[in-house]
């Protein structure tokens, strides 16, 4: 297996070993856990710092715990790690110039989609009563029913089943 696959396999296996003991008061524990869930493990890159059992994750969790004990704010702790590992360590991508498209994109697309929808719907209200036939359909109908009938019968042909 390549190095990557080996890494990934190792992470999956490590993930099974539950090695966290819970101590201290629940509020701090909660805060620590929430912080850890905002951060990504750099070794097992698909897991949060809270879930990963890679050794580095353990070291980083210890750092987080120490900093919380030292009275640092959440922002300071996250900043501390981002300074050392870059934005990659954030489990949720930050909102900055380079990620504007990421965060705004979907809603922009939605707006575009909605716009297209409105335009199409408006156009359809002014469309002819029945859909125009494609050449083959036209020929079929003309052959069966004679040229003059081609328009109205199309509807019946197409809407075979009553709705």
């Amino acid at each position, binding site marked *: 297996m390549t190095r990557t696959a080996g890494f990934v396999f190792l992470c999956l296996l490590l993930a099974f070993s539950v090695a966290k003991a819970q101590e201290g008061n629940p509020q701090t524990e909660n805060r620590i856990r929430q912080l850890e869930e905002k951060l990504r493990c750099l070794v097992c*890159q698909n897991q949060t710092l809270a879930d990963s059992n890679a050794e*580095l994750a353990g070291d980083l969790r210890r750092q987080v715990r120490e900093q919380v004990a030292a009275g640092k704010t959440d922002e300071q702790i996250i900043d501390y790690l981002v300074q050392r590992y870059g934005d990659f360590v954030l489990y949720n991508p930050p909102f900055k110039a380079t990620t504007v498209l990421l965060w705004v994109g979907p809603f922009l697309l939605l707006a575009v989609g909605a716009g297209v929808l409105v335009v199409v719907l408006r156009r359809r209200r002014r469309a002819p009563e029945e859909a125009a036939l494609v050449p083959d359909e036209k020929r079929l109908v003309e052959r069966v029913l004679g040229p003059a009938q081609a328009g109205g019968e199309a509807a019946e042909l197409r809407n075979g089943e009553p709705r």
Partner: protein
Amino acid sequence: MKRLLIPLAVFLLLVGFLAVGLNRDPREVPSPLIGKAAPPFELPLLSQPDKRFAPGDMRGKVWLLNVWASWCVSCRDEHPVLVDLSKKAVLPILGLNYKDRNDEAQRWLQQFGNPYQLSVVDADGRIGIDYGVYGVPETYLIDGEGVIRYKQIGPLTPAILEQKVLPLAKALKK
């Protein structure tokens, strides 16, 4: 109809990105420390635990800081490259022994050779965190002002040395 070409255009743009992406390693986490001062530390030497070293001691010189450990399999691949480099005496190489045991580390160096001018001991990995280490081996090129100029994630190879590290080191020395 121009509108109908939009899906094709979007697709071709996507293919462009994917083609570039084929040459990138998605697992690699680049360092935000490049261009910044190497984080300070004061650690004991592997060979003489009562003596200490700080990066400031290397002021005025361009040097390599190599993060290694005796339990690290890839380090063994990289080691001959470092030993070779040290023989050429082009660039001082200093080691950061990461989360290791002194006796095993020293035994490893005895077995595989010692390219390091000296090695410091980062027993609990704290300094590693300061340097953004997330895997071993990693290597930093630090200039005379103590600024990190390049980080190699993963083992150094002769090709990388020749194409990236040594030319940069030469340019920095001037």
